């Protein structure tokens, strides 16, 4: 059977649907220019579990659960569920952690960078240029024989485990629902101010997350792959997806009067150009070495890829470090500790790029 969502028209439509749903999520309560941000939402979820204690970014984002479950359903329905693992998991963990640290210096993953620009936040231009440069560095490694090695087919449990973790998280939320004005409900933390306190109603978030997860699994939507394939092969296919996302989000913002152009006073953003750029160089390089943007890693986890799941766990660990060690930026800008971590991250990623090579 032909996969219509993996055609040129399909990927454009999926991108556009993601753009529209993202802006609607913002309209329903998610933070500004953060209708869907995979890195931010994993960070908020990490905080809700108490793995970091930054009070403004603690909330189990149902979109994340929806992404994984939606992808899982698509993979099962279309017989693409393939339990697999064993392609350098510990390297993927480290890449995930540094990808998150880089993204939190910029304040957003590629998904949010596109939404920030669509909302008029010109600081995102620096982030996107950084993303481009990071991915370009990654493609140099790819051209020289870099890869993380062969994955192995394995038993079903490996493929199921990440989806089951997400179901567990969902049960945890249902058992510990948010209490108005309280920062804690049972074992979960809930922000009462800041970005973590801004969210669309639970049911909308999870349903939109499921739709995006399903569509993205089918279409192979990937914000890093979009730029990587363009640089590496001059292939436009995935790029059309992110173009669809950006244009749909821009149009939605214009319709809803949410387009506020400028550099200064942008929501959940800072104007330190060099660190907006640098943070995304690190994130882009780490995503490229790991073979997918944070969204794609969630969708792959849903379809049984245990290595992608390890990358996501790495991102969760990275988010915890980012806030526990004060590496994440804020509206005031990047931190000294964050800048040090950025350089450590770049050195680590370059070392991985140089050493994980197969002679060609």
């Amino acid at each position, binding site marked *: 059977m032909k996969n219509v969502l993996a055609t040129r028209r399909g990927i454009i439509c999926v991108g556009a649907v993601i753009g529209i749903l993202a802006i609607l999520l913002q309209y329903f309560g998610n933070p500004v220019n953060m209708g869907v941000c995979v890195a931010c939402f994993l960070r908020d979820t990490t905080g809700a579990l108490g793995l970091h204690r930054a009070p403004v970014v603690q909330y189990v984002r149902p979109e994340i659960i929806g992404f994984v479950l939606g992808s899982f359903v698509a993979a099962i329905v279309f017989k693409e569920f393939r339990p697999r693992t064993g392609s350098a998991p510990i390297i993927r963990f480290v890449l995930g952690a540094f990808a998150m640290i880089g993204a939190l210096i910029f304040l957003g993953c590629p998904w949010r960078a596109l939404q920030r620009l669509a909302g008029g936040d010109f600081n995102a231009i620096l982030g996107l240029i950084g993303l481009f440069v990071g991915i370009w560095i990654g493609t140099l490694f790819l051209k020289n024989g870099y890869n993380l090695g062969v994955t192995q087919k394995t038993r079903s449990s490996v493929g199921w485990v990440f989806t089951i973790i997400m179901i567990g998280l969902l049960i945890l939320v249902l058992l510990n629902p948010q209490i108005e004005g309280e920062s804690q409900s049972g074992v979960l933390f809930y922000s009462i101010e800041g970005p973590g306190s801004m969210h669309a109603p639970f049911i909308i978030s999870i349903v939109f997350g499921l739709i995006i997860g399903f569509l993205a699994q089918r279409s192979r939507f990937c914000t890093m792959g979009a730029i990587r394939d363009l640089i590496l092969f001059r*292939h436009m296919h995935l790029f059309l997806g992110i173009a669809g996302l950006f244009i749909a989000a821009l149009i939605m913002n214009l319709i809803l009067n949410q387009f506020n152009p400028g550099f200064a006073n942008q929501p959940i953003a800072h104007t330190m150009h060099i660190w907006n750029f640098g943070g995304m160089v690190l994130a882009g390089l780490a995503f490229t070495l790991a073979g997918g943007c944070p969204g794609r890693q969630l969708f792959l986890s849903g379809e049984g890829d245990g290595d992608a799941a390890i990358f996501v766990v790495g991102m969760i660990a990275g988010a915890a470090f980012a806030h526990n060690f004060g590496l994440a930026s804020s509206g005031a800008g990047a931190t000294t500790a964050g800048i040090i971590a950025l350089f450590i991250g770049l050195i680590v990623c370059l070392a991985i790029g140089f050493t994980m090579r197969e002679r060609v």
Partner: protein
Amino acid sequence: MSKLVDARGLSCPQPVIKTLNAIKTADTSEIVVLVDTDTAKENVIRAAKSESWDEIDIKEEDGAYRITIRK
């Protein structure tokens, strides 16, 4: 005589890189690419078509795809 590219177990973009390298250095008019995910299958086909190797034949054999591409 055809050239064989075994990209099983490799994640994207490796199957595409290997296919395009094989196309570049091909001294035959037929290349067989083995992949084991649907994503890799779609990407390899798309890459082959973009290089005008557009006569494509796909067979499924024990959980993997055997993609034959010809100029």
